[in-house]
């Protein structure tokens, strides 16, 4: 349909305009339906946690039902950081393979199994780690068991999201590089990866968000500690924010509830901070 034809055909144009307006209306409505619950949740969390937010939260450890959350904040960074250190190389590596060389049967099978792995309930991975690492290897509740469990959870997400973002790039880009005689690793790291970085980063951040928000698998692997992490990877339980959210809400004290919501607020804040930092880093990188 050409412009002149449309202009001549007024009722048809009016119909198309109405259709477009309705379409945008639906798109905006979809966004509102998604954004409204989030704002409501954040409002709820902020309102109920506000009374517990104070500098002490960041300077002292949990003491019974009061005190601060320093141990949990540090623990969340350690566990999520550990999960990323373990999970990103594997996930991104697998994602690159699937996108660049994964058209054969091996790639198809891995892609399929990776999607199956995302459907494994986190508690099953937690119990798996509990039996194999906490008890089997005798690590007891520990940062390592917790971080590995989280890594198991996030690897398939990182792999598939990396793959999807690499695949989105036009084939011509790769073909021209290969035509110039560039080896595969050069094509991947110099050509494809830099362009796909925002997408890959989005995937990693999404996986991080998922790992920071988990409770169930960590109760069986990281345990929980009221004290600051002492740096031991095994034989020492470690705290984390979502534990506070889950178990402090189940106590009959108002101070515990405030602390629980403050912890929930912090979880969101921590990931938000990482998100924004990563985006700024990316912007800076692009400018250069």
């Amino acid at each position, binding site marked *: *349909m*050409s412009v002149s034809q449309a202009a001549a055909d007024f009722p048809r144009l009016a119909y198309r305009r109405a259709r*477009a307006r309705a379409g*945008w209306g639906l*798109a905006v409505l*979809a*966004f509102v*339906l*998604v*954004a409204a*619950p*989030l704002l409501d*949740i*954040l409002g*709820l969390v902020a309102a109920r946690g506000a009374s517990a937010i104070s500098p002490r939260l960041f300077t002292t450890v949990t003491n019974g039902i009061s005190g601060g959350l320093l141990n949990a904040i540090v623990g969340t960074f350690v566990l999520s950081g550990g999960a990323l250190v373990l999970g990103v*190389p*594997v996930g991104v*590596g*697998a994602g690159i*393979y*699937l996108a660049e060389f994964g058209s054969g049967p*091996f790639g198809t099978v891995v892609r*399929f*199994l990776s*999607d*199956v*792995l*995302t*459907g*494994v*309930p986190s*508690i*099953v991975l937690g119990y*798996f780690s509990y039996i194999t690492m906490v008890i089997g290897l005798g690590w007891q509740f520990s940062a390592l068991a917790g971080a590995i469990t989280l890594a198991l959870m996030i690897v398939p997400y990182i792999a*598939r*999201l990396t793959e*999807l973002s690499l695949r*989105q790039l036009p084939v011509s880009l790769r073909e021209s590089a290969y035509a110039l005689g560039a080896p*595969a*690793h050069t094509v991947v790291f110099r050509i494809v990866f830099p362009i796909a970085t*925002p*997408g890959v980063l*989005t995937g990693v*951040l*999404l996986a991080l*968000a998922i790992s*920071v*928000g*988990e409770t*169930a698998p960590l109760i069986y692997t990281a345990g929980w500690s009221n004290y600051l992490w002492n740096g031991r990877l095994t034989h020492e339980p470690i705290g984390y*924010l*979502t534990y506070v*959210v*889950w178990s402090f*809400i189940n106590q009959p004290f108002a101070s515990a509830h405030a602390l629980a919501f403050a912890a*929930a607020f912090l*979880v*969101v804040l921590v990931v938000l901070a990482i998100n*924004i930092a990563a*985006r700024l880093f990316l912007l800076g990188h692009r400018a250069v």
Partner: protein
Amino acid sequence: MRTSLFRTGLIGLTGIIPGILFAVIIFLALYSWPAIRFNGAGFLIRQMWSLGNLYANPVTIGATEVPIGAHYGILVFIVGTLATSALALLIAVPVSIGVAIFLAEGAPPRLRPLLSLIVDLLAVVPSVVYGLWGIAVLAPLVAHVIAPALGAVLGFIPFFAGGSPTGFGLLSSSLVLTLMVVPIITTTIYSALQQVLAPDKEAAYALGAMKLEMAVGVMLPAVRGSIIGAAILGLGRALGETMAVLMVSGGAINYLPTTITSPISTMASFIVSQLDSAEQDPTGMAVRSLAEIALVLFVITIVVNGIARMITRGLHVSLAGRG
């Protein structure tokens, strides 16, 4: 030589994923083997689940020691899992596409980073917080507004009739799952939409397409693969989610849902809710049966993924044929 080293390295990293999966499957299979033998195929089609009397001396049935009255059937949880995930995806996929198009083409460019951050944040909210919000806000909303409205409009279909006194159940669980799945699907589609090449878009405009017509007619088909991949990822999250669903599902046991607001239980949430008591079973059969549920969930995930792939392959072919 370096090329092959590079590829070998990638294959090594990639191989870790099936490695993890097989380790977990073998662990579950070995661990649940006594339960598989004891429960037989009826495990999948029985509606009743009972840990039995954990405080009396166990009895020996066949060669297996189990608590008196122990009876493991998971049909209710299979149905709950499939129903919540299907309903959640049914809502989440169109919503995500709408949001992604809005973000990519509709929203003012300067606002886009902020708006897409809002969507990302949905993934950050801990699942327990979704549960708390579900209990405090969503369930009452379903009970007093959404369920009555659905009943008034679609009440002639029995599935939508009946209302819900509590709001805890299938619909609330699916809505919570929808919120948890939307960021995964939206983010993936949105970042794919951003990669659509300008010449393709310009070609559509040159033909006189409006912005939305261009987005729907050119951009969406271009990112079809990403939409499908994202939906499958979202499906995985929905099938495996535990805490949030547990808190708003109404924890149905021993009966099947009859309406969209009936209480349900999903397999993942049921495992969490029973694990603590199961650990008190001196024969260990309860925990092993829970491991068997996890194994069945694996099989279901594999089957559902397979079906999703078959459908989408058909879609690819038909779209290609049309194009």
